């Protein structure tokens, strides 16, 4: 079949976008579905952010000023749930939808209709979750980890709505992940062997595997919760022969891979961006791939480090301690590779690069505090203090969220065919990078000094640091509004994307015409 014939036939077969709301409600196009994922995630980022603002306002001063302790509990619970399940995970699925077909030369995701089902389950599940605010008993207040018996014996009726919300989110994630794997395994352009795939695609392939492996476990544990709450079973009740700690084991078997689900695609994005702006190929591509695989494998066998303070048997503590420290090895490989990629590169510092470099530095801080907590005896001191809050926020905010920002600025010129305002984006970066450290760095200090997490009030000696932390939080929160402004401005009135967006960018996604046609790669490109 000649190229011309294919093109004509392609035009005949491949329709443009539908008109009106139907384009979105009934979309099967990976770009439209990716766009919906991204906007939903952004909306949830601000909802979860609003909860965080309430938390920081309450903690601005000692004493109770804004909300009562119950509301405070609801706020940090919903903050965690909305950010994890509503913002970061869907944002990465949005990236996967947009980028994977473009980067591997596929015309779309492998199963476009299931793709749409994965998307629509997300907003309805979030609606079920958030609707608890308007019910008797109010929203869940047991923390995003919903430990039994807080979530079973002592939770309000609304916990059952939370459970079903989690079920729906799980179905959505599993189908999304199956789609990603099928796309990557089956729809790569001829010549694109596995070890020629872009790092972002590799990290998502492994992320998808993690999702399929652990989301069903989460579904299992919330199902046990459901029957414990409503049908008299004894899974998490010692008086019936069960064990509340069993909840934590099953939950963290899901929960630990889950944190890599949120961070592995970040690694992928940063591994795309650093080579572009350093104008050098990624250092140690193969070792990056193997390190990602190693991290994914280790993530399944270290869950007990979340439970050092629960009285695990000594052998268990030792095992989980050593296994956890092993993760530092592949993670270190990645960080050194990123540093080596930048070494002696002709670097320029556009917004995606700034966010990526900040990611490398700040994620490393989060990684190193993780290593500190991996040591069981030391963890007894840090456990359930603000130190852990600082740790995981360093991995998730200047980690995952910065990578999301970097990726958005990097690929936005492809997505909407227009450039964003580089000057504003740089201001957005510096405001975010400074405020995020004002927000989270002092949390290490208050944590080491003994301030527990999840408290609405605290002793006087923590007052100064908490005020600083809150100010950092407000600045960080407000500066994210700039991000929305920059994106909307780019879409509405940005300069058209030039033929060469970034000087050093390589890959199939940069070879497509601008503005992007509704269907791309209708005939697969050849990769050599």
């Amino acid at each position, binding site marked *: 079949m000649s190229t011309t014939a294919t093109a004509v036939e*392609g035009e005949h077969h491949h329709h443009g976008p539908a008109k009106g709301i139907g384009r979105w409600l009934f979309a099967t196009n990976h770009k439209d579905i990716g766009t919906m994922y991204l906007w939903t995630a952004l909306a949830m980022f601000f909802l979860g952010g609003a909860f965080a603002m309430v938390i920081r306002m309450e903690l601005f001063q000692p004493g109770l000023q804004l909300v009562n302790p119950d509301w405070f509990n609801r706020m940090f619970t919903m903050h965690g749930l909305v950010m994890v399940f509503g913002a970061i995970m869907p944002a990465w699925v949005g990236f996967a939808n947009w980028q994977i077909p473009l980067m591997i030369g596929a015309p*779309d995701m492998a199963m*476009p209709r299931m793709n749409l*089902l994965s998307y629509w389950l997300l907003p309805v599940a979030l609606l079920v979750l958030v609707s608890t605010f308007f019910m008797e008993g109010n929203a869940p207040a047991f923390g995003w980890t919903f430990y039994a018996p807080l979530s079973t014996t002592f939770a309000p009726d609304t916990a059952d709505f939370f459970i079903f919300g989690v079920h729906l989110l799980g179905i959505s994630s599993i189908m999304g992940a199956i789609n990603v794997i099928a796309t990557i395994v089956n729809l790569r352009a001829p010549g694109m062997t596995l070890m020629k795939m872009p790092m972002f695609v590799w990290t998502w392939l492994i992320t998808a595997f993690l999702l399929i492996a652990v989301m*069903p*476990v989460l*579904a*299992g544990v919330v199902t046990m919760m459901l029957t414990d709450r409503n049908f008299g079973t004894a899974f998490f009740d010692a008086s019936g022969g069960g064990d509340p700690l069993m909840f934590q084991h099953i939950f963290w078997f899901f929960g630990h891979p889950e944190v890599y689900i949120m961070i592995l695609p970040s690694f992928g994005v940063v591994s795309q961006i650093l080579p572009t702006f350093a104008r050098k190929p990624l250092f140690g591509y193969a070792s990056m791939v193997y390190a990602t695989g190693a991290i994914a494998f280790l993530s399944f066998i270290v869950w007990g480090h979340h439970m050092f303070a629960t009285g695990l048997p000594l052998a268990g503590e030792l095992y989980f301690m050593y296994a956890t420290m092993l993760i530092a090895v592949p993670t270190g490989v990645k960080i050194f590779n990123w540093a080596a990629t930048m070494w002696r590169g002709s670097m320029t510092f556009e917004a995606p690069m700034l966010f990526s470099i900040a990611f490398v530095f700040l994620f490393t801080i989060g990684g190193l505090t993780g290593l500190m907590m991996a040591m069981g005896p030391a963890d007894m001191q840090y456990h359930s203090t603000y130190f852990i809050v600082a740790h995981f926020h360093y991995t998730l905010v200047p980690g995952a969220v910065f990578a999301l920002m970097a990726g958005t600025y990097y690929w936005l010129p492809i997505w909407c065919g227009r450039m964003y305002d580089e000057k504003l984006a740089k201001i957005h970066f510096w405001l975010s990078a400074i405020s995020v450290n004002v927000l989270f760095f002092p949390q290490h200090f208050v944590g080491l000094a003994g301030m527990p997490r999840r408290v609405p009030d605290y002793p006087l000696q923590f007052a100064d640091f908490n005020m600083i932390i809150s100010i950092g939080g407000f600045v960080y929160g407000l500066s994210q509004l700039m991000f929305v402004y920059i994106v909307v401005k780019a879409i509405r009135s940005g300069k058209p994307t030039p033929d060469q967006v970034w000087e050093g960018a390589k890959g199939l996604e940069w070879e497509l015409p601008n503005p992007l046609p509704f269907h791309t790669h209708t005939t697969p490109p050849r990769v050599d």
Partner: protein
Amino acid sequence: MSGAEGSYYVPEETRQPALLAVGLAATLFGFALSLHGNSAGSMIMMAGGAVAAVTIWMWMAHVIRESEAGLNSAQMDRTYRIGMGWFIFSEVMFFAAFFGALFYVRVLVLPWLAGEGNNAMTHQLLWPLFEGLWSPTWIPSTEGFVAATGTVGAWGVPAINTALLLTSGATLTWAHWGLFKKSRVQLITGLALTVALGCVFMVLQVQEYGHAMEHLSLTFNSGIYGSLFYLMTGFHGAHVTLGVLMLTVILVRSIMGHFTPEHHFAFEGVAWYWHFVDVVWLILFVFIYWV
């Protein structure tokens, strides 16, 4: 351009996914409402369930029409296979959560409650009479739980059920062979036998539940044994039910003349699923009923 190697079928806009998402959410939302005595709950649940069921029916019918129209390329077929394989892996992990709980309880929790390890004082202070047995007749505390009078033995109905499921795996493979050698009769007979065996399994399982509840007073409420027993065999039963439904669809399609020796992903997908359900049962049989 369907069918051509190196091109891919991108479907038109579709209404079903959004409908199905709303239907599923309404089903679960209604269920949660009805759990807390809201009278509208069961109505919402049934309406949602009906929407979901009809949507799935329409969706599957659409996919089958496409398949019969020859729209599915070899690449699409691979996509379906990859998808089904990973879906079954997700199911494996769902059961893994429950098997994990089973082994954790039997190997660690019960001995600990009986004072093993560093738990001597816990044992003394909480339930000094508890011996840590894996049995619904012994529960640490009868406060909130009702002990059963016996356990479900392996060598009655469960052993028969094991034989039934193993045989059904064989009849299904025999049907598959029939498809390969273009013997419609063997295909249809084999599938019909498989469906029948699956149905008999379900009937026996329901009877076994009735026996356990009536004569052994074994319920959800019989401590951890009852919890694990009913949830694990119950979820397995739910999967058998789904498997039988899917087998029935395949049977009807075989009677209608669908499937060729080269082109029968739906048959293989269902067969994989059925064998998976089979294997889960074998592990259940060993660790729930037998040892």
